[in-house]
């Protein structure tokens, strides 16, 4: 592995009410500075695993270590991007982006300054005073991403961030995400059910099998991204091979 693991999951399991088993004995190491994807069919517990790493759900078995410390709740080194955006409907884009800083007690001038910077970086300049209901799904998720970047966490946890966004917006967003993450030097853990999305974005893909979720395979796509534009990557032989390899594994789980 090229980089040191920043997140380690050791034997994590989760069962609800002692009967429904969502995850079983999951062990993972997620490298610093990389983008790792948790990929699997619906019901494989990938979101549960992400929320366990976030400290939002306690595991029933095993433990999670982040930056050498055991996780027992959310922490400042992790920020979450929600599938349903989780924006305050009564707050402007500016307040929503600054909300993480607001909760930490940063003064209004300071947090609005930081928020404005990230609003511009995610391409929403000019929408500072808009409300979420005035934005499209893609724009709302940009607000969610800006909020996660604004708290300056090392690790960004993204729970199917593009699942409620249309395909065109999704592609554009993916490309911008890669550019942005290169600049911001974040470690990203990304949950998705899209094989193409995983192959396109990831340095490491963790394939999960369904009910209970276990690690089925870990793939390191060796896609040469340097100097290539997104459309070239999507025609790259390695990229297409990875997509095919994942599909061969996942199709066994599809009923």
């Amino acid at each position, binding site marked *: 592995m090229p980089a040191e693991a920043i997140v380690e999951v050791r034997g994590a399991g989760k069962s609800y009410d002692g009967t429904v088993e969502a995850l079983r004995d999951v062990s993972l190491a997620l490298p610093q500075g990389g983008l790792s994807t948790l990929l699997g069919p619906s019901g494989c517990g990938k979101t549960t695993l992400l929320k366990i790493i*976030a*400290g*939002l759900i306690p595991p029933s078995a095993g433990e999670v270590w982040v930056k050498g410390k055991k996780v027992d709740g*959310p*922490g*400042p080194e*992790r*920020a*979450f991007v*929600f599938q*349903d955006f*989780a924006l*305050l*409907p*009564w707050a402007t884009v500016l307040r929503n982006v600054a*909300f*993480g800083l*607001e*909760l*930490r007690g940063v003064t209004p001038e300071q947090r609005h300054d930081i928020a404005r910077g990230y609003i511009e970086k995610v391409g929403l300049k000019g929408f500072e005073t808009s*409300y979420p*209901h005035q934005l499209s799904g893609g724009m709302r998720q940009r607000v969610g991403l800006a*909020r996660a970047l604004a*708290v300056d966490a090392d690790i960004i946890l993204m729970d199917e961030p593009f699942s409620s966004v249309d395909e065109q917006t999704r592609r554009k967003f993916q490309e911008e995400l890669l550019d942005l993450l290169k600049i911001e030097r974040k470690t990203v853990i990304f949950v998705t059910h899209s094989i193409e999305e995983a192959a396109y974005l990831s340095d490491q893909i963790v394939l999960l099998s369904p009910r209970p979720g276990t690690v089925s395979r870990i793939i390191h796509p060796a896609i040469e991204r340097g100097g290539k534009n997104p459309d070239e990557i999507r025609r790259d032989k390695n990229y297409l091979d990875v997509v095919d390899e994942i599909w061969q594994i996942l199709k066994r789980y599809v009923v």
Partner: protein
Amino acid sequence: MAQQRFVWPLISFVFVFGLWELAGRWPISLAFPPFSKTALALLRMTVDGSLPKAYLSTLQPLVIGIVLCGIAGIGFGIGMGLSRTIEWFSLPIFIILQAAPMAAIIPLITYIYGIGLTAKVLAVVVLAAPVVVMNSYKGIRNTNASLVQMCRAFLGTRRQEVVKIILPHAGALIFAGLRLGLAMGFIGIVIAELMITPTGIGDLISYHSSVADYPEMFAAIFSIIALAALAIHGLERLERKLFPPEIRGA
């Protein structure tokens, strides 16, 4: 457009009052005065001061009762929403109170508190409190789970969760509860004045009815209906202004 907003309600009023006038002149009953006589009686009662005086004594307990519900009722509803313990011992009581015909216990209040201001305030509270409490409780309970999780993920404390997410999210429902509470409060105060304390507008209604001054009686009834409708409509508009549907949580 602005004109149209006034034209249709105006036509509607003219139509209803016109029918009333016709029915009164027919007459369908000796005890049913036409609109014109009722309107004149309303004017007479306003000028001679009997109507304003009655309202002074009616509105005082109504306002006190609604303010009490606004503070204690909303507070209690929020407490029920936030604490499982408070919910556990008080939710059944309020479910029963909301379902029960509370007007039936108003005579009971007289036995305990006599016929003074306290009894009238209590009549208002007894009718208004259940809906105020239950709406506040439901507002808190309906909090968007995803927003609460977001607050926790960004290191919000429980206090911040309540102040910055749960309360703003519940605001619209709580306010709606207050509006419904006011509607119930109007019912409570009129029942109280008709049944227990012969004062205020209730007394005006029963007095004029007993001496067969039917236009005066109808004027009093009409005035309280109009006042209640205007007050509740006003609150509804305020509600829409304070909590526009597109930016409210619930």
